[in-house]
Every structure is written in C-alpha cells, then in structure tokens.
C-alpha cells in the first residue's frame, strides 16, 4: 500500500508501480499460454466436420421430429426397470453406507488408527469410479441385466451417502450424547437416542438426493447392457431410428423432472 507525498498531499494507490508491472506481465503470460493451447487444439481438429456441424445437426433434428409416439407402448417396461434400478440401488447403498459412516466419523469410530482409514478407503474407492464403469465390470462378472445395474448403482452410491452421513455425524451436538451417556445408557442406546435422532434429517435428505441422482445415472446404464431405458436408447441409436431416440429422450426428461419434484417435496417436508 504505497503512499506518495505529492505537492504536500497524501496520495494513495493500491499498488506500487513495480507490483503493477508484475501483474501486467502475469496477464501477458496467461494470454500467450491461451494462444498456444488454442493453436494446439486447432491443429488436432478436423475443421471440416466442425463447419459442417450445423447442417448435420439440422439434418438429425428433421429426422428426429416428430417423435414416434406409438413407440411409447414399448417404453413402459424399460422406464419402470430404470426406476427400480435407481430405487433398489439407493436402498441397498443406504443399508451399507450407514455402518461405514459410523466407522468413518471421528466421534463414533471404534479405532481412529485402523478402522477409520479402512472406512475412508471404502468411501473414496466406491465414489471415484463411475457407475457406468462399475456396470461394465459387473456385467462381466454377473452377466447383463437389471441386477447388474442395481448392484452398480448401489456400489457407486455407498461412498457418496457414507461421506455425507459421516460429516453429519461429526457435526452433531455433543451435549445431547453426553446427557444420554450420563443416564447410564449402553453404547447402543447412546447411539439410538443421542446420535440417530440428530442425523435423521441429514439421512432423509441424503437418501432422496441420491435417489434423484441415481435415476439420472440409471438411464444410461442400459448403454452397456445393464438394463433399463438405456438399452432401448442404444438399440435405437444403432439402427439410426431418430424418431425413437427423441421419444426416449423425452421420456427420460419427464422421469428426471418428476423425480426432482418428488425429492424436493420430500426434502422440504423433512427438514
């Protein structure tokens, strides 16, 4: 914060001239890097296809509209499968996530040194792999179908749910736990009375939030053969049946909008 004495008045500037110069240099370097990157990308792009894009998009749009409405009779079953994959997967994930969360939370873990790192590893490893990749792996192991989808969604969701839950457990009011402990309650009773009521809103919020995400994730699982509406989508794409594709996209959109509405309602009611 430099202050100059100029004609007897105290003049204040935010930065010294030297600092100004350094900043200007920084901006220049940034600009150069951007230009170089742009050039690299440009070299690796077949510009003919990009210039062609609006025409192709327009072509697909005219082929895809209007959607083939009568195809909807064949979509009831797959969208029902998709909903089931999401719902069952979420329920299984919650059952598995609760114990993991208790083992991972600093204030409830039996051992900070040994068990907590294992719980954290479970959380990180299940979270970091996309459900599509889990589905690919599981299809190889248990064969294609809805069940592989359910398991993929469940595994993918454990880490997410457990992480949010253990953060909720770590943030509980310790005084309530202390009060229950002081009555002579056992370890399990302290958990049921001192901790569980405090994390119930978080639990409900996580459950519907994850269910909402899972509906979106399970729509694509069919692309790799794990059941649901994605199966229809990939079949239609393969035969270039664009009117069917557009109808499927509409159905997915409707399902997602409805699930979002339900989860917003449920969360609003609980919290």
């Amino acid at each position, binding site marked *: 914060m430099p202050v100059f004495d100029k004609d007897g008045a105290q003049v204040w500037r935010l930065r010294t001239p030297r600092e100004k110069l350094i900043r200007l240099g920084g901006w220049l370097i940034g600009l150069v890097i951007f230009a170089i990157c742009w050039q690299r990308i440009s070299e690796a792009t077949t510009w003919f296809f990009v210039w062609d894009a609006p025409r192709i998009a327009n072509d697909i749009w005219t082929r895809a509209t209007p959607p083939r409405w009568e195809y909807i009779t064949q979509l009831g079953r797959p969208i029902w499968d998709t909903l089931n994959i999401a719902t069952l997967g979420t329920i299984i994930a919650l059952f598995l996530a609760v114990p993991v969360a208790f083992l991972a939370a600093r204030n409830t873990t039996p051992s900070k040194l040994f068990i907590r790192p294992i719980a954290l590893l479970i959380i990180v490893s299940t979270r970091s792999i996309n459900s599509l990749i889990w589905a690919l792996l599981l299809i190889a192991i248990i064969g294609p179908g809805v069940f592989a989808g359910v398991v993929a969604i469940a595994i993918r969701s454990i880490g997410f749910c457990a992480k949010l839950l253990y953060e909720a457990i770590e943030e509980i*009011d310790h*005084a*309530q736990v*202390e*009060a*229950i*402990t*002081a*009555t*002579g*309650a*056992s370890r*399990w*009773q302290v958990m*049921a*009375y*001192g901790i569980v*009521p*405090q994390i*119930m*809103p978080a639990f409900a919020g996580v459950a519907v939030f994850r269910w909402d995400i899972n509906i979106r994730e399970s729509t694509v699982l069919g692309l790799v053969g794990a059941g649901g509406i994605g199966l229809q989508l990939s079949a239609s794409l393969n035969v270039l049946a664009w009117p069917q594709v557009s109808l499927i996209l509409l159905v997915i959109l409707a399902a997602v909008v409805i699930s979002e509405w339900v989860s917003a309602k449920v969360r609003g009611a609980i919290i």
Partner: protein
Amino acid sequence: MLRLEKLTKTYKTGDKALQDIDLEVPSGQVLALIGPSGAGKSTLIRCINRLVEPTGGAVMLDGEDLTRLGSGALRRARREMGMIFQEYALVERLTVMENVLSGRLGYVGFWRSFLRRYPQKDVDEAFRLLDRVGLLHMADKRADELSGGQRQRVGICRALIQDPKLLLVDEPTASLDPKTSRQIMRLITELCRERGLAAIINIHDVLLAQMFVPRIVGLRFGEIVFDGPPEGLTPDKLTEIYGEEDWEATIEKVEDEEDIEAAE
C-alpha cells in the same frame, strides 16, 4: 455419601483443571460450587460420573470407588447420579415424553428402549414428574418447541426419573432469564428436599447460590478456596475466589432481593 479424595484432573495439554480436591457431601445436602470460568467446576462434576476421566484420586459413592469401575459397573453407578445441563442437552428431535423416559435407559434393555416399550411404572412416573413440574400438557410436544425454562424442567424430570441419590447440576440457569433462573433453582432445591437428594450445583451467579443453597464451595484454579455457609462469603472471600472487585454491592443486593422475593 459422596466423598472425593485427592481428585485430580490434568488435561493432555498440561492444564491442571483439578488439584487434589477433597470434598465430602453428606446424604441429602445441596451444595453450590462457585468460581470463575475455567476454575474447574464443570470438570469436577464430570469427573464424578466420569464423563471426563479423572487422572488421579478417588470418587467414593457409598463406599465404592467409581474411578476403578469397569464399563458395566460404571453404567450402573451412573444410574445413581442424575445430571442436569447448562444448555438443557435434551434430544431436540424427540418428544418431551421420550426425553423424560430416556432417563430410564440404564434400567431397560436396548430393544425395549429402541421400540419405546418402557415398563408401565416408568411411564406412570414420567407423567407424575411432568405433572410436578407443570408440563403435563407438553408431554407430546417435540423438545425443540419448548422455551428455555420448559426445557430445563424436562431436563430435571429426565434426571429425577433415574431415581438417583445425587444430582449433578452444571450451570442450570446460565441460559435463562433472571426470573426463570430463580424458578428453576427453587424447583431444583425443592425437589431435592422432597426426595432427600444430595446435589452439587455449578453456578456462576453468586446471588442465586446464596439465595437457595445452604453450603457454598468456592473453586479457583482447580482448588477449593472456600467452603461454608452463604453468610461466610465476605468481600475478602469473593476476592479470593474471583479476584479483585468491589463486592459490597453484590452482597448488599442479596438482602434487597430477598425483600423483593418476600414482597412478591
């Protein structure tokens, strides 16, 4: 009934919260523990029921050393000691009735408590206690719907339903307005008299302590520096406990306020 022998607590940071505390509380005696913040009042009562583990000395309750108990025996011993907290420490999302009944957790099994199938006599006692503190109509309300004074009454019921011999009371009035504070102190001392309970009440409000409690113990830097009746709290003694300050006003006010109380 309760005897502390050279009770010591040194925190991992090296802070000596309690230094060789010797204190005897006979059956049915109500005692106020005063002292500045950080004097070790909370640590002292938490060392008695081992919410904080003491590092040395003994806590003798009816001839049994609580510091040597295993976890099962400690839980049985905790049933004998009801605790009341500064910020009430009710389970906010449970109903008043569930909060009161949670005082029986040490007596009922896990599944009974989990399914809220408490023995009928516990439920009867819960209703009796709620009626006694004037909250019978609130039994079905959630704890977070209650006002501060009402919550503290629920906290008192939860402690009493344990059927304890001793109450450990940690700053019961610190979050309450002056009028409610007095009502709560009066309620606690009355209930102790009715049931012949001993109590250790942590309180930073010297006036309240003098008004309601026959024996006052002053704590400073983890050591007892005063033990006697309220009349014995002279300005010199208060200076010893809290440090230099003009105490005349505090002591005079006690008499004034008692007049006001009488006039009411």
